[in-house]
């Protein structure tokens, strides 16, 4: 499955979430939504306007909203609760573990303000740690859609499955490029671009950056496979193992701490099945900060440039015989890459 993608504009993933909720509301009478006082920002306000009788404002009380959702689910409802990820994946972490996942109830969480692209609100609001936690929770389904439309599809999909689920989305408008017929399936990673020189494995807005990096790599003859891991749990082992086997070098990219998130999941699967060199693009164990979204993505190293540079390093490691010991060197900045004879940056 591979298709060329073109930019259709830019839209925030949260909008897909908000619109997906309305679709669910239309389809199912028992879908209800809980508000955490930021309903405009996480766009549950769309549902609230449309189905005021099935919307309940819980206020700034994320623990309570999560556990109330569990109670509603135990009474046959399909409750969605949305807030910022820092507050609906972490402030309520214990509630998610016991009342939602151990209880195995039909609670759906929408976690916004994910990643550094949140912008000027700064570190407290830029959640970069929750993928790690959420993917350890038994029974949890964790989805990180790559754009507005996939967010909409994913929202509908988690509403239609049975069991706990979490969808992660962002604040800023990000490239919108998937189409109605772009395949999306819970639990399945999708190959968004074919290639077997290196695999770029990404989630969220980093999928587009990976497509851009792949295009740039193509300009110098490197055929990169781009994989959109929209479901992080359950993890699509097969697609990643195929990539390891067929490409022999992997780059992971995510708007999350570089540890224990998507990159960690890929590293685990690869080590267990088909060890190959991996380079990890993500936030390097620091907190975020204020700034404009694009500025921050640059400063924190979350653009196609880092993916591009990482791809060259991963391939070099593979080609030199990746058994070769690498002195823990960091990936160079794109701008620092030497220019090869073809006028393109090389590793």
């Amino acid at each position, binding site marked *: 499955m591979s298709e060329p993608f073109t930019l259709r504009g830019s839209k925030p993933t949260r909008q897909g979430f908000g619109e997906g909720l309305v679709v669910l509301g239309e389809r199912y009478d028992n879908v*209800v939504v809980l508000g955490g006082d930021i309903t405009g920002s996480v766009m549950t306000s769309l549902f609230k306007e449309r189905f005021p009788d*099935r919307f*309940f404002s*819980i*206020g700034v*009380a994320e*623990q*309570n909203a*999560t*556990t*109330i*959702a*569990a*109670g*509603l*689910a*135990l*009474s*046959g*409802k399909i*409750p969605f609760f949305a807030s910022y990820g820092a507050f609906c994946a972490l402030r309520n972490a*214990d*509630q998610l*573990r*016991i*009342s939602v996942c*151990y*209880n*195995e109830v039909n609670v759906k969480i929408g976690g916004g303000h994910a990643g550094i692209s949140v912008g000027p609100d700064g570190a407290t609001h830029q959640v970069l740690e929750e993928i790690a936690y959420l993917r350890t929770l038994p029974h949890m389904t964790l989805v990180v859609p790559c754009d507005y439309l996939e967010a909409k599809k994913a929202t509908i999909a988690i509403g239609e499955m049975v069991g706990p689920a979490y969808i992660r989305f962002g604040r800023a408008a990000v490239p919108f490029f998937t189409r109605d017929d772009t395949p999306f399936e819970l639990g399945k990673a999708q190959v968004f671009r074919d290639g077997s020189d290196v695999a770029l494995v990404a989630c969220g807005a980093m999928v587009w950056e990976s497509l851009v990096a792949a295009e740039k790599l193509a300009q110098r003859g490197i055929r990169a496979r781009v994989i959109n891991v929209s479901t992080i749990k359950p993890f699509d082992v097969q697609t990643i193992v195929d990539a390891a086997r067929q490409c022999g070098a992997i780059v992971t990219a995510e708007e999350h701490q570089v540890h224990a998130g998507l990159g960690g999941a890929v590293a685990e699967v690869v080590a267990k099945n088909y060890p190959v060199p991996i380079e990890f693009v993500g936030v390097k164990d620091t907190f975020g900060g204020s700034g404009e979204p694009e500025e921050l993505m640059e400063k924190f190293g979350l653009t196609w440039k880092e993916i591009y540079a990482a791809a060259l390093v991963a391939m070099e490691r593979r080609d030199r015989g990746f058994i070769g010991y690498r002195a823990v060197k960091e990936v160079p900045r794109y701008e620092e890459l030497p220019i090869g004879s073809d006028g393109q940056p090389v590793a």
Partner: protein
Amino acid sequence: MSAEFPIVFDPTTFDNRRRQPHEFAEIARMIRRDIIKSLVLAGSGHSGGPLGSTDIFAVLYFGGYMRYNPHDWWTPRDRFVLSAGHMCPVLYATLANTGAFPKEELRTLRKYNSRLQGHPGRDMGLPGIETSTGSLGQGISIAVGMAMADKLLDKNGYRVFTLTGDGELQEGSVWEAAMAASNFKLDNFCWIIDNNDCQIDGRVHDVMNIYPLQDKCRAFGFDVVTANGHDYAELCAAFDRFIANSEQRCGKPTAIIAKTLMGKGVSFMEDRYEWHGKPPTWEQARIALGELGEDIPESVEA
């Protein structure tokens, strides 16, 4: 040599109807014995809270207040959520005495793969266990969610009861739940507080003072009733008040502050916080059962 003795569970079960105090007393004695038996067999677990709240359970489940079918539990029913999950031995013993499951199963408390987990696990499917609990302060919110489901959506008129400990009230999330219960005018919601003034580390007022408790509950929008948690008439009056509140749609949730003694019914446990999280030894179980009206013949070794 251990002074173990054969544990026999009386297979009697009770029905659920208006009763006289002496009838409750008999039921409560049975539940307490079952608690002691299951705990001594388990070799770990919580004695104090369960024994202290037994009278509340006797009234709630066997006084006609909770509506349920013990033989087909998941049919339309009122809900009870044990927010203080560690007190589950009393819930298990109570449910067994309704006939929801064979009393013999009380032998499996805290054993591997038992439906009677150390803290309630909904995954095990024991009839009457509405939800998993064990992390304090969560059950009450779940109960609020259940009450909302009926009051605001389904309108089948079912009621939701929850029991929290008093140490549990130190968890802020309890107050989030309380605030929401009154915000949504959940007059179908009854919050029972097991006010034994004991928690693991000592007296609640020493560990972290929660008083004045009535004022707090009232300020959080509850109709508050205080009752001696070992006086059946007072407990009935408290539950009657809740039923009336709910039938009259008074627009307020009800809080019953039940003053109890931890370990009630067993002389050496009564009002002693040390008994929060211990099971009796076999020797202590023998004495306890004796005090609860069941004489165990001396074993050969003892």
